């Protein structure tokens, strides 16, 4: 019982709306939604175009972008992440023109500045079906 009560690192509870994103991530692809009517690209996953309410397709992003802002997390909301602090939490502006919230990983992360180029990497989790789209300095 004690083990069952240990805090677990948070994983997505995959739902009908964002399932294609997580399937893509497991295959090493960063998936975004694109409006069939107006062509707008959006993230996070929704059921309609956030601009014109059109229907949506999924597209694979290039997986590159730049650092918009970042913070070094010393106190994670979920204490299970404590062993990884400081966590480099960031907002990336993808080249497709959307903001993605994620985490910066890799040995060079201490050098990060806003505006730096980054590329997506997919990190394994304790669930073999789930990979997390993180970023490294490019």
């Amino acid at each position: 019982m004690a083990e069952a009560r240990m805090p677990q690192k948070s994983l997505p509870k995959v739902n009908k709306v964002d399932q294609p994103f997580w399937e893509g991530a497991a295959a090493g692809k960063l998936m975004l939604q694109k409006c069939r009517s107006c062509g707008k690209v959006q993230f996070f996953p929704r059921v309609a175009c956030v601009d014109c309410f059109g229907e949506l397709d999924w597209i694979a992003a290039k997986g590159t972008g730049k650092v918009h802002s970042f913070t070094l997390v010393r106190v994670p909301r979920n204490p299970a992440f404590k062993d990884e602090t400081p966590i480099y939490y960031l907002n990336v502006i993808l080249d497709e023109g959307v903001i993605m919230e994620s985490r910066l990983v890799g040995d060079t992360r201490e050098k990060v500045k806003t505006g730096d180029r980054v590329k997506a990497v997919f990190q394994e989790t304790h669930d073999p079906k789930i990979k997390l789209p993180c970023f490294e300095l490019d």
Partner: protein
Amino acid sequence: MRRKKVCFVGYGSTEYSRKSEAAALSYYAEAIRDALRKTGIDKKEIRGFSITTQASPDYSPHVAEQLGLEVDWVLNGDYGGAGGVMSIRRAADAIECGHLDLAVLVGGNSFDRSTPTQRQLEYQRGNFVDVFGYGGPNSLMALIERLHMEKYGTTLEQIGKIAVAQRFNAINNPQALFREPMTMQDYLNSRMISDPIRLFDCVMPCSGAECILLASEEKAKKITDKLVYLVTDAEISHYQVANMLPDKTTFGQKVVGERIFSEVKREDIDLFEIYDDYPIAVMIQIEDLGYCKKGDGGKFVDAHDLTYKGDFPVNTGGGELSVGQAGLAGGYLHIVEALRQLRGEADGHQVKKAERALVTGIGWLNYGRNLGTTAALVMERRK
């Protein structure tokens, strides 16, 4: 829109506690009891009830039943930190429509673990934020603060001046959890939580509750001779929602401010109760509301005295930063303090000329943007 015949007639508060596990319901009851005792109103005169809390969504009829309130109007006022202002707006609408003439609106929280759990994270925060080990709201506001500092040259000292001034205001407020003086060095040296957000940028979660009694003008005149009117109010939810590259350093308060100040003059406001989950949020709202240009918040703070004795009094009782944040009571704390000031009842931290107050609320740090709900109101003492 300009309101004509809606009045704030009373308020109630509880003690704030960092440890108490007393039932949230007890806190709500205590805040209401305090308001009834101060105004001499009989509980049976209350015909409307609103509760703002982080507990489960269908909560307000349950709470009304627990408190023994037979009412003509009931509301779940859960709009995050904007819950106070936005609930007041809805109650005012109902009063103007004639559905009722007296409502009690409550915000509160307690650490009682035996009652329903806090509401779930909205799904995008669960699936696309929490999974990366973020530090809660502290991290989301840190992203905004870094952008403001880099884009506009805002300094830690300018941001810290807000926290230091509010602490000065709290020294004579018996409700405040933090009443020891704070220096700029104390602020700068406080522990880093999520760069550049440090400990003294953060609010202390606590148990407590606040409440407001809102009435029709006709009813108000029977209750008190200190008439405080709701003058005008505005809100916007999901400002910039369709913009995938939004300006994170501009909140919906920009739109709210334009609406508010089409009805009253900026320079006619005597005191400012500005939702302060973080000092940087106060600075950004001062800009958004048009008291200075976007990005000049740091210079504005340098040029003004923000204490209750100053030329631009902000969060005159210490705000959430020094009083504590009792969950969604945070959005009521500012309204209660404004009413206390306008009634001349803020012993030890009374603003000398207090006829008109601006109160704001902001709620729900959201994905990739900034605030989900933003709202403000102006209240005025009339002879």
